[in-house]
């Protein structure tokens, strides 16, 4: 039997310096000329689930409690759980300390849908990232009303997205953005174009792992 090949919808033009094959994904760990930040990191290979249930708050995926109100998130042991509305939550395995456990991502209970290959996922981390976001969306990330981590569901570059702000701490700020896979190429184009004046560069997974391990 032949191995399947999983292809990220995100194509970054920089030259990969270090790559890794994991769970049939070709993952770039480091790019040439990443610069000093901010960084755009492709995380489309990170397993992501959608969970729907009439009583979603009573479910404990991977032993974790789903936040009680929409917009709230929990990040614990590499798993990010975002409450979307009364009946739905999304789960991202950011997996910085779950190496080798990608294949145990699907729980046995009903209600889960694997959306890894139907969506893109990117992280924008580093300094000035909210100045970049401000050019692409009217969502107010810097409102003191929202304390990280929190989830926004709304248009980013006119595309309906889930955007999780993991940190608003100056140069260590970071967001994770997901949207439908078909928008991948144009979403990356618009983010890099908006970030050009802030020196936004593509970066490998190592840069993201370093960043999130310090949160």
């Amino acid at each position: 039997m032949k191995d399947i090949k999983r292809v990220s919808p995100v194509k970054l033009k920089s030259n990969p310096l270090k790559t890794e094959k994991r769970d049939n994904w070709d993952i770039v760990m480091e790019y040439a000329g990443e610069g000093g930040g901010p960084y755009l990191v492709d995380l489309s290979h990170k397993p992501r689930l959608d969970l729907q249930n009439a009583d979603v708050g009573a479910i404990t995926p991977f032993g974790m409690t789903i936040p009680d109100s929409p917009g709230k998130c929990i990040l614990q042991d590499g798993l990010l759980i975002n409450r979307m509305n009364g009946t739905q939550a999304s789960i991202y395995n950011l997996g910085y300390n779950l190496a080798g456990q990608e294949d145990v991502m699907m729980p046995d209970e009903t209600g889960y849908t694997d959306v890894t290959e139907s969506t893109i996922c990117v992280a924008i981390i580093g300094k000035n990232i909210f100045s970049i976001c401000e050019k692409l969306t009217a969502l107010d990330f810097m409102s003191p009303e929202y304390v990280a981590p929190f989830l926004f569901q709304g248009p980013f570059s006119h595309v309906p997205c889930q955007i999780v702000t993991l940190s608003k701490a100056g140069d260590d700020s970071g967001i994770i953005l997901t949207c439908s896979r078909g928008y991948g190429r144009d979403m990356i184009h618009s983010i890099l174009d908006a970030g050009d004046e802030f020196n936004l560069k593509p970066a490998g997974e190592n840069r993201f792992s370093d960043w999130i391990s310090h949160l």
Partner: protein
Amino acid sequence: MALTITCPICGKRNGYEFRFGGEEKGPRPEENGLTPEAWCDYVHLNKCVAGVQEEWWFHKDGCGLWFTIQRDTTTNLEAETVSMSKLATENEEAEK
């Protein structure tokens, strides 16, 4: 004039994020004794109020919630929105 709508979950957003769901017409009529004419009236007839009316909206680019708002059709401004927390409080009080 740009329409803004206050989603009970996401807060005040651009009207383009939402899909209109029609006037609020009250509960679906009882099927016992329901005539085709009465059903047709319920489905198709609208009041088309010139003023404040209650109407359904769907946050299609956001949280996916269906909810109602009060909108003044002459100014295209929201009059009042019932928040989820207020609804929950009202429901709790009604159950007591």
